[in-house]
């Protein structure tokens, strides 16, 4: 028991404490900026209403505006708290509902994107001509701004009656197949020459070499590239929600918020999207640690 506390203490000291200090510092800077950016509006109002005020009045007012230029952290967290706890999940104002609307296409897009990325990588590694013919197009696909291509995808898929989750996951997929392809091409080629020779002495077929050697050897690369892909998938989904005039989803919350100057709402959605991406990245990492190929387990 005592040792467990020691370990916990070490963990807090090594990991939590530095993060906490950085958070504290950022919050301080944030509150200062909130005062600086919101003060002109408050000063205007005080002048109009001809109220006398103290510095404390001014500062507290800048942190409690309904539509501030920069909302203060506690306003954002209260907005998230209200949206997730105080409101029923079925309500139009529930952030859990909007979060789920964004999460579903993200997960689907990540799944399709990872599968596509792996298939492309296998093709590139096994068929020599594909490396020359396919890879330039794959790279070119990522130089097109996603903001330009997203509305086209939505409209094209909409015209064949594909609406809702699927078009958004296509955009998420578009962003996340790329890191998986690049990572997996490297991963599938990462196996040691000796391990390859061994397969040859067994007269193993190319298919057997893929399943028993190349794929297991590439798992650390898959985990690393899926972490990049997971974060990109969230961005893809949110970009997919922007041009459609969607009413639901974190992207829609940001868009609607910007129409009506609801800055607190925008920031709350933004924080939630970031949290979503972080949770996905951590989930990929945790699943990756289970694999017997992970560096943690192969370390001598």
């Amino acid at each position, binding site marked *: 028991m005592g040792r467990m506390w020691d370990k916990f203490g070490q963990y807090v000291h090594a990991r939590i404490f530095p993060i906490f200090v950085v958070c504290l510092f950022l919050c301080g800077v944030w509150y200062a900026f909130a005062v600086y950016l919101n003060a002109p509006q408050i000063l205007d109002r005080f002048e109009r209403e001809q109220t006398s005020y103290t510095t404390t009045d001014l500062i507290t007012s800048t942190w409690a505006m309904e539509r501030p230029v920069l909302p203060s952290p506690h306003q954002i967290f209260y907005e998230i708290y209200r949206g997730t706890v105080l409101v029923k999940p079925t309500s139009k104002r529930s952030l859990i509902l909007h979060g789920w609307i964004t999460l579903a296409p993200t997960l689907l897009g990540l799944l399709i994107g990872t599968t596509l990325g792996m298939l492309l990588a296998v093709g590139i590694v096994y068929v020599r001509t594909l490396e020359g013919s396919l890879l330039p197009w794959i790279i070119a696909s990522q130089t097109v701004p996603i903001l330009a291509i997203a509305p086209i995808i939505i409209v094209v898929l909409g015209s064949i009656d594909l609406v809702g989750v699927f078009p958004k996951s296509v955009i998420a997929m578009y962003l996340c197949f790329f890191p998986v392809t690049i990572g997996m091409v490297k991963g599938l080629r990462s196996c040691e020459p000796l*391990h390859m020779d061994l397969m040859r002495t067994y*007269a193993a077929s190319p298919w057997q070499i893929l399943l028993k050697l190349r794929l297991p050897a590439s798992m650390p690369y898959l985990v690393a590239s899926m972490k990049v892909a997971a974060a990109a998938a969230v961005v893809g989904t949110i970009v997919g929600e922007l041009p459609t005039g969607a009413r639901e989803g974190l992207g829609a919350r940001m868009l609607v918020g910007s129409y009506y100057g609801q800055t607190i709402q925008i920031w709350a959605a933004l924080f939630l999207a970031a949290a979503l991406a972080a949770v996905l990245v951590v989930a990929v990492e945790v699943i990756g640690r289970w694999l017997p190929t992970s560096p943690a*387990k192969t370390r001598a």
Partner: protein
Amino acid sequence: MSSNSSSGHIVVDSLSLTFRAKDHDVHALSDINLTIKPGEFVSLIGPSGCGKTTLLRVIADLQEPSSGHLTIDGQTPQEARENHRYGFVFQAAALYPWRTIEKNVTLPLELMGMDRKEQRKRAKENLELVGLADFHKKYPWQLSGGMQQRASIARALSFQPGLLLMDEPFGALDEITRDRLNMHLLDLWRQTGKTVVFVTHSIPEAVFLSSRIVVMSPRPGRIIDVIDTNLPADRTLEIREDPAFTAVAQKVRNGLKHGHSDESL
């Protein structure tokens, strides 16, 4: 796939291998003639660059000769490889880190499509043979270097090939471990009666293990001498103090010196 004592008959006939480098050709093997009889323990010894590993890789069909002929029990190296006639033990254990020791040993059996129960049985037998029965659930990194190499020998034996090709399998190990594994390998050879082709650059190791020693020399890679050891079958490590042993070792040393003398090293 079955083990029979009459397998491992290797005939090498005027074999040459030339690597094309940028400005000159490297004659890795030049006019090699050698016959290895079933059940023999033959060591290939020589300084680095003499082509001993290359010769072993040509036998295993991991490398193609430029000219000449090689058969294993009357088959081409490619046929022999496809028929799983030999097991190869590399310089490093080359165990797959994501597989347990047992799963590493069953890898070739898996590839051959053997039934699972039989796979497990074979793994158990062969791990017992190399003294690793209790470690079947461990991962390679949990084992010492010597144990890893023993596991790789169990893997090479798992599909019961008549021929064992070993490329400096104990070269990376410390001397104490190496001595123990030499003892172990000798026992194994006596028990199974397999043909072994063993690459090494250690004279005591070659003399201790082999029934015949092939001395090679570099530039071009060629055979200088073939020496019969004629040491008693039940030899132990103590035989290294024996005059008969030192005499053979001296012969090998002279052979190696002779190979070097033409280039005034």
